[in-house]
């Protein structure tokens, strides 16, 4: 079996300008933040993001990496809105495709099943259709004749997800309360890269959780990166909860004079220096993680 262990830099080197990239997790929960930070350090640009959006979208927008965002919402959960995404939108510099959350799900399912679209009721009558003029409806061929939204497949060039455990071959496990849509993101993508808190031998995967926790298997993953604390500052239960104090610091950095400072303090170095700067932040602020 192919050993798929990579570094975050290896993953980024397999991405290209202009790609459509699906990002797993949900809001400010189990986002592949170490991979996002690696993109921030790279020259990658013009990305289209497909995401149940959180600070992944916000950070990439703040750093000017994004051409377009496809989403149902962008939220930090405990803070309702992501200030960086908001600022980028209000500057008028982002192309967006805003869908109902269920439409995003239908689009990913269509892509995973190699279908051109899936019908859904969500979106009918709302301005989502007017805002996405390429969207079409489809009429049921059965006697009901119901008109439904034909949600087009959201095909991804690459998917980035973060899970609790994985083996070297790309079998991966979530141990928290919710799989989110990570498996579907990987199935909808040409290539999928997963980061995890810990790489363990295959025979130890079931020591962590039941068989149902083995969310992604190796046919849907092309690279595995071990990134301890790699979802920080989003939650990665049960390994850690969201770092609320640091998330507030991030949210405050949307003020123009603060972003350069935040970037220099936390993002300009490598992942190790990020984690060290976060530890120093907590020591200085005397706020526990």
């Amino acid at each position, binding site marked *: 079996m192919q050993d798929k262990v990579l570094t975050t830099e290896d993953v980024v080197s397999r991405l290209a300008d202009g790609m459509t990239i699906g990002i797993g997790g949900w809001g400010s929960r189990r986002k592949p933040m170490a991979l996002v930070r690696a993109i921030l350090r790279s020259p990658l640009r013009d990305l289209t993001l497909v995401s149940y959006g959180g600070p992944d979208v916000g950070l990439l927008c703040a750093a000017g990496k994004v051409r377009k965002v496809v989403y149902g919402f962008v939220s930090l959960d405990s803070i309702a809105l992501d200030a960086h995404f908001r600022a980028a939108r209000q500057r008028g510099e982002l192309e967006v495709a805003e869908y109902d959350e269920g439409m995003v799900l239908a689009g990913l399912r269509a892509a995973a099943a190699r279908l051109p679209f899936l019908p859904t009721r969500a979106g009918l*009558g709302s301005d989502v259709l007017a805002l996405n003029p390429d969207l079409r409806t489809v009429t049921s061929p059965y006697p009901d004749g119901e008109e439904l939204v034909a949600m087009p497949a959201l095909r991804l060039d690459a998917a980035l997800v973060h899970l609790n455990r994985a083996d070297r071959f790309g079998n991966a496990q979530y141990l928290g309360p919710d799989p989110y849509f990570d498996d579907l993101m990987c199935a909808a993508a040409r290539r999928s890269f997963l980061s995890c808190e810990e790489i363990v031998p295959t025979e130890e995967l079931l020591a962590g959780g039941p068989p149902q926790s083995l969310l992604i298997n190796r046919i849907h993953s092309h690279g595995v990166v071990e990134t301890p604390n790699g979802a920080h500052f989003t939650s990665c239960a049960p390994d850690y909860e969201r770092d609320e104090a640091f998330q507030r610091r991030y949210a405050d950095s949307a003020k123009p004079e603060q972003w350069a400072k935040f970037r220099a303090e936390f993002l300009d170095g490598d992942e190790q220096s990020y984690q060290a700067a976060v530890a120093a932040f907590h020591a200085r602020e005397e706020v526990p993680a």
Partner: protein
Amino acid sequence: MTISRAEVCAVACADTWRDAGAVLASPFGVIPSIGARLARLTTAPELLLTDGEAMLLAEPTALGAEAAGTVEGWLPYGRVLDLLAGGRRRVMMGASQVDRYGNQNISRIGPWDKPKVQLIGVRGAPGNTVNHTTNYWVARHSAKVFVASVDLVAGIGHDRARQVGARFHDVRVVVTDLAVLDFTGPDRTMRLRSVHPGVSVAEVQERTGFELAVDSVTETRLPTDEELALIRHRIDPKNLRDQEVPG
């Protein structure tokens, strides 16, 4: 102890679930969260409640104590999105704007390409409103929220539902810090159903950006002693409700 405005609002929210039966209750905001728990403990014992994430809780917990609840089921986000398409859910969402037909906006204010204010996005509002009963909670009733025309239709109102033949559309009630409103006015427009004690019809009309039907306005009912005890001692002992609706 006198009955607070927040407590009147919580009971008005609870009443929106009283005939819901065995469905998932999805409240957004503190007062709706109290309302759903209160309904579950009084008039709607079959309601399903979540911990705000993926667990279904067998018994209502105090606000902020969800992690201590007994789990009766598992409903991660993906299954919520599937369940809502089946209709067995009743939500109470927030609204940045609402118009007289119940069209709701939580996405953005101003032009689409360069919004004056980017909000959270349409979220599940389009899917919720075409699939199952949807009600709204507005913590500060004002003409900025109750507008003649919303900047973007996220949740669809009665005029839009009629245009597209949305057969499961059922937007019923808007509860605010001043009043309870429904859509039984002419052509299914917004009607003032009741004003909270101490609020006048004129005050509600003044703080609404369009004309309301006001043919038979009553006073919003007060909580019973049982409901007050449940709210104060069991559901919201930390009094988070007064932060959302002061006074």
